[in-house]
């Protein structure tokens, strides 16, 4: 017997769903998390090496440029010497020769006292009379042999810087102004992405080129970068909510620092976009997995429930069959043992009755008493007979076609359910319209159909209600109507009620076979069974038994 409740199947469903989802989704989640992490790291590494490469490359170019300017001046010094260069016209010739090919703005020849001996360039009247002897840079040149200034905006508001070099004996020097605009164009090409930046600062963080940001100096966080080192370095700095990646490289003999700045967040935007797509894919595939799991689990558990139901039905049927067989044997045994002695008692009493008629009532003192006693014996034999016959009727499982009247069968079936009806406070009315012919039919089967329909009606009604059975007949068929005042059958299940194993009752409570079996029985008999129902108005089952079908059977029985 199977008495599994709906909760059992719900729990089973839940368990299966949870296990399947854990097995399917956890690896997916781990995988996508790991992939995302790896991808992010890979992306960062790529950016790092890229920005490092740019910094190295640009610093090489800038160093090369500076070196070129210096060597130009040094060549001029060594090639021409002071005596030649201090002549203004000689310097003009040299200046006009190199100016077009270089970033030279002007060039001046200074004597050991810091005074111009000659000057070639656009600012002669402004700078020619200046005395640089007390200037720090002049002293450095005369001491070290060379000097490179930071970049500053000159009279033309153009960024430039000064390179000065002294001769070997520190007796005179050349001072040249060099346009540093080339740095800006060189670094502009290193602005990576929409917010990348590249600029040069001096050792105290003052801008030597125009940064993209337009800032004149470094931010507080960026000051940490002012650390002079060999080669290129990469550093990540978080300012506020933004993270930047910096690559630094020293230029101009460690006097300046080239900084390539890269907005991590902006750069990672494309990565985040890719991750967003990936997460959508993961989400959608999770959704697919979840819905597939739900569908499959639902399907499986419903199958299990159905097979449990079928098994329960078989078990129940087996039990019922065994029970019925046992009861049948017992009943037959009792009937056998009781009916024969009853027959003897009956006949003996009858014989006494026969004999009494021969007696003279006045000759026997207690004649009326004898007569009464005999009658009473017969009456009670009759009573006992009814019991044993009902017992036989109950136990017999006759698969024989018999000539019976449906009216008798309806009455007999009603008697069967008398107690049940009383218990449920259900009123049963029977109506028999006109002449109902007897038919040859398998009475136990048709009785089973009646019982099934009436049991369903009782279950549907619950308590307080009416079941009306009406039997009528025309020349073609017998019509048996069972109508009840139950809640009716919803429209969506009315087509399923004759399906095997369809039941609205709990597993183990209803087999879902009653109406299905009934349908098969009636169809086998060549009849028809129909149902009409409106929710709230009750249900009417109609059984049609064709008379034509039974005439041949009846003839067979009679002959």
């Amino acid at each position, binding site marked *: 017997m199977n008495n599994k409740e709906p909760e059992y199947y719900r729990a089973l469903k839940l368990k299966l769903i949870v296990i399947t989802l854990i097995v399917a989704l956890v690896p997916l989640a781990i995988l996508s998390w790991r992939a995302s992490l790896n991808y992010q790291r890979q992306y960062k590494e790529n950016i790092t090496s890229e920005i490092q490469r740019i910094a190295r490359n640009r610093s090489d170019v800038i160093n090369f440029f500076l070196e070129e300017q210096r060597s130009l001046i040094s060549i001029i010094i060594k090639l021409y010497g002071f005596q030649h260069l201090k002549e203004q016209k000689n310097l003009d010739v040299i200046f006009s020769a190199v100016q077009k090919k270089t970033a030279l703005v002007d060039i001046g020849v200074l004597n050991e006292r810091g005074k111009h001996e000659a000057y070639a360039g656009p600012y002669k009247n402004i700078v020619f009379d200046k005395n640089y002897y007390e200037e720090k840079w002049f002293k450095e040149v005369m001491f070290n042999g060379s000097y490179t200034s930071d970049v500053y905006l000159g009279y033309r508001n153009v960024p430039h810087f000064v390179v000065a070099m002294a001769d070997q004996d520190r007796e005179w020097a050349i001072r040249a102004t060099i346009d540093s605009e080339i740095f800006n164009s060189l670094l502009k090409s290193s602005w990576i992405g929409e917010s990348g930046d590249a600029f040069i600062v001096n050792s105290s963080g003052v801008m030597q080129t125009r940064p993209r940001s337009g800032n004149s100096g470094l931010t507080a966080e960026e000051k940490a970068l002012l650390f002079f080192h060999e080669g290129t370095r990469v550093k990540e700095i978080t300012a506020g909510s933004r993270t930047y990646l910096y690559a630094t490289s020293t230029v101009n003999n460690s006097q300046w620092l080239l900084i390539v700045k890269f907005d991590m967040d902006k750069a990672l935007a494309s990565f985040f976009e890719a991750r967003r797509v990936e997460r959508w894919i993961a989400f959608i595939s999770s959704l697919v997995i979840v819905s597939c799991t739900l569908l499959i689990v639902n399907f499986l558990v419903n199958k299990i429930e159905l097979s449990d139901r079928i098994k329960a039905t078989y078990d129940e049927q087996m039990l019922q069959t065994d029970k019925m067989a046992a009861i049948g044997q017992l009943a*037959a045994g009792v009937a*056998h043992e009781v009916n024969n002695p009853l*027959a003897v008692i009956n006949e003996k009493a009858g014989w006494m009755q026969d004999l009494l008629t021969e007696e003279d009532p006045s000759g026997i003192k207690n004649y009326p008493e004898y007569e009464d006693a005999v009658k009473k014996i017969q009456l009670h034999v009759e009573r006992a007979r009814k019991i044993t016959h009902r017992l036989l009727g109950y136990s017999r499982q006759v698969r024989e076609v018999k000539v019976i009247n449906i009216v008798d069968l309806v009455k007999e079936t009603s008697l069967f359910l008398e107690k049940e009806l009383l218990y449920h406070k259900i009123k049963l009315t029977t109506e028999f319209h006109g002449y109902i012919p007897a038919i040859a039919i398998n009475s136990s089967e048709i009785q089973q159909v009646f019982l099934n329909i009436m049991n369903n009606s009782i279950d549907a009604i619950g308590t307080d209600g009416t079941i009306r059975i009406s039997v009528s007949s025309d020349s073609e068929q017998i019509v048996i109507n069972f109508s009840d005042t139950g809640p009716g059958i919803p429209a969506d299940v009315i087509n399923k009620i004759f399906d095997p194993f369809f039941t609205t009752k709990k597993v183990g409570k209803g087999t879902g076979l009653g109406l299905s079996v009934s349908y098969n029985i009636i169809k086998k008999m060549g009849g028809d069974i129909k149902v009409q129902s409106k929710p709230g108005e009750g249900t009417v089952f109609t059984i049609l038994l064709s008379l034509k079908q039974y005439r041949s059977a009846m003839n067979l029985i009679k002959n």
Partner: protein
Amino acid sequence: MEDFRVLVVDDEKEFLETIVKRLKKRNLYVEGAENGENAVEMIKKGSFDVVLLDVKMPGMDGVDTLREIKKLKPLTEVVMLTGHASVESGIEGMKLGAFDYLMKPMDFDQLFEKLKDAFEKKHLQELKIEEARVKHTMMYPPRGWD
């Protein structure tokens, strides 16, 4: 009402005796047999109109006896008596040509009516046969009449 000849067959001796006595009292010619074999013997020797036959008997049972009787004397009508769960046997008996069947314990008047009906049927059938024979004879008269 015409009297007729009845053979009662039942292995329950008390029952048999009483039924025989009661039927005799109703002016029938009645004999009793305690088993199928005896009954068949008596059918062979005597002539009975109706046989009241118990279905369940040791040895030759009611159905076999019925078959034998119908073989020997097809016109003899048989009313079957069943005492227990042998309703099916009763029905089978009807298929084999029994007139009707009753379940023990039965109402004696009902039994008596059944026996009379059975005799009536037998009588009618005999008349029909007689009639047919007469018709036949009239349609095809014996040569001697020529």
